[in-house]
């Protein structure tokens, strides 16, 4: 297990470096400098600005400086939000985004697994068809279609919930964003759980358990659930990435001041360092969470460690 864990951790480092390198190169391949503007600056001032931001150094030097900064949690200054560093901007917006993402994942796993198990146990019945049909819709309809339609129905037509973050207060204003973010993941998880549960319920050890007279409930809880959850665990990585991407849309639609909002504003304002910093941050987050998932997988499934 230690060997497996070490290999996984060592594998994660070059992946992260690769992302930082690709993202950094992209930004520096951009035509024009970050401070190009209509107004022509006197050459001395331009030199000073370039010196202050280390833009006078060679590209490899700048890259090493950036990587060094990333390792210390310093993502550099924002080019547009003067007086703020990228790290400060992320830190300010992160708690809200984390709450949104964590709640959505929690709902997605709970609802998705329950729906998947029910569909698997009632395979080929009306209930199963309803679940798989609803899951297909959930997978097909993207967050940026669901979220505005939810606002239209629940805020504009029915007036049950606030249409935006600023327009409401209390937990009610988180309800729609969290559900909009969770819906596609509920659908994916329900489908995955259904498929793997059907596979497990047809396996020999479940037949043995049945032959011993165990009830369906205890078979599911004590025997089938753990092996059926393994494929789900490997989906957690992509799910986390999808929720991060989705949260950008949800924060935009509902006007939630999270990391995603800064990302979009940075992207539209061509704030290179901010966009670069958030990309690196998200990549590190996704890679770290994937690592956790991998290690958990190793703990739960001994077969994978020996490979």
């Amino acid at each position, binding site marked *: 297990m230690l060997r497996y864990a070490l290999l996984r951790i060592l594998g994660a480092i070059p992946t992260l470096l690769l992302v930082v390198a690709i993202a950094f190169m992209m930004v520096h391949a951009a035509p024009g400098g970050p401070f190009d503007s209509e107004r022509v600056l006197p050459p001395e001032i331009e030199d000073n600005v370039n010196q202050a931001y280390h833009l006078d150094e060679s590209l490899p030097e700048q890259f090493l400086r950036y990587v060094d900064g990333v390792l210390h949690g310093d993502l550099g200054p924002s080019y547009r939000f003067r007086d703020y560093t990228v790290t400060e901007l992320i830190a300010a917006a992160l708690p809200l985004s984390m709450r949104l993402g964590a709640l959505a994942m929690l709902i997605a796993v709970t609802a998705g697994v329950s729906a998947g198990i029910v569909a698997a146990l009632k395979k080929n019945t009306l209930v199963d068809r309803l679940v798989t049909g609803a899951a297909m819709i959930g997978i097909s309809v993207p967050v940026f279609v669901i979220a505005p339609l939810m606002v239209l129905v629940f805020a504009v037509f029915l007036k049950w919930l606030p249409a935006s973050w600023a327009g409401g207060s209390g937990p009610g204003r988180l309800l729609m964003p969290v559900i909009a973010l969770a819906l596609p993941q509920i659908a994916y998880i329900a489908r995955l759980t259904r498929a793997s549960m059907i596979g497990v319920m047809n396996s020999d050890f479940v037949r043995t358990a049945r032959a011993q007279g165990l009830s369906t409930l205890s078979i599911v809880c004590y025997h089938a659930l753990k092996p059926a959850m393994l494929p789900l665990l490997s989906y957690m990585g*992509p799910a986390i990435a999808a929720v991060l991407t989705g949260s950008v849309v949800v924060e935009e639609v509902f006007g939630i001041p999270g990391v995603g909002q800064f990302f979009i504003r940075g992207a539209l304002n061509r704030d290179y360092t901010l966009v670069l910093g958030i*990309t690196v941050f998200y990549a590190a987050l*996704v890679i770290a969470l994937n690592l956790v998932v991998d290690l958990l997988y190793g703990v739960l499934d001994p077969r994978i460690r020996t490979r």
Partner: protein
Amino acid sequence: MSVSPALGPAIRRLRANRVVMVCLVSLLVLAIVALLGPFLTPHRYMDTDFGARFLAPTFSDWHLFGTDELGRDLFSRTLLGVQVTLFVAVIASIVSLGLGVAYGATAGFIGGKTDALMMRAVDALYALPFVFLVILLMVVFERNFMLIFVAIGAINWLDMARIVRGQTMSLKQREFVDAARLMGVSTPRIILRHITPNLVGVVVVYMTLTIPQAILVESFLSFLGLGVQEPQTSLGALVNGGTAYMERAPWLLIVPATVLALVLFCFNFLGDGLRDVADPKQA
């Protein structure tokens, strides 16, 4: 050369699957209407008419889906959106197809350490939030139309690479590959001329599954204002435009949202159905 010996029964199974046929027909109808659209309506997608802003859907003057905040006809704009969306999706899928097939076939055919290393790289790439890199690319390179295709194709090739690799590994055991090798055909040539043609069936099936993914990414970018730019439009950009005026003119949101959902729904069902048909064991 027949693509697969089991093609006859496969087509029969496809015909029997009513949902798949409905999706296939709706997509074809939608594509034809989108292509003929400009000839069907008197309004061009970029013509503004400030006397006719926020018109609700009406038969008078043929504003079938109403008009937007600049008095532009939503029907013709939606048709343009469908055109752009389908176009981007097809091109992006071809890019991802080329990358995925080349990578997967090479890894699968060479096998051994090279294969292990190449597939490990794919595993690592799977974990990345690619969409953020694409957005970074869009920011840096000025939302270039062609770049969108390439970028979207570049993030969708991983699944294709995995599937093609698996298929190649079983294909290379076959006698005709041994025969080609015996006759002194070079490895790249065997991959290109003997392995790739046999992958067509699987690849076509999985391409119908990558198309909705490509549509999703494109409309996601356009929704955020980073994709297709005015006066051009795509379904994602239209949904975004609709959200701004949903209280005053809900049809601006409902129409493009429904069309986009319909397109994605049909492609997903079609892909799923085709996969079941091609591989009845998995169904």
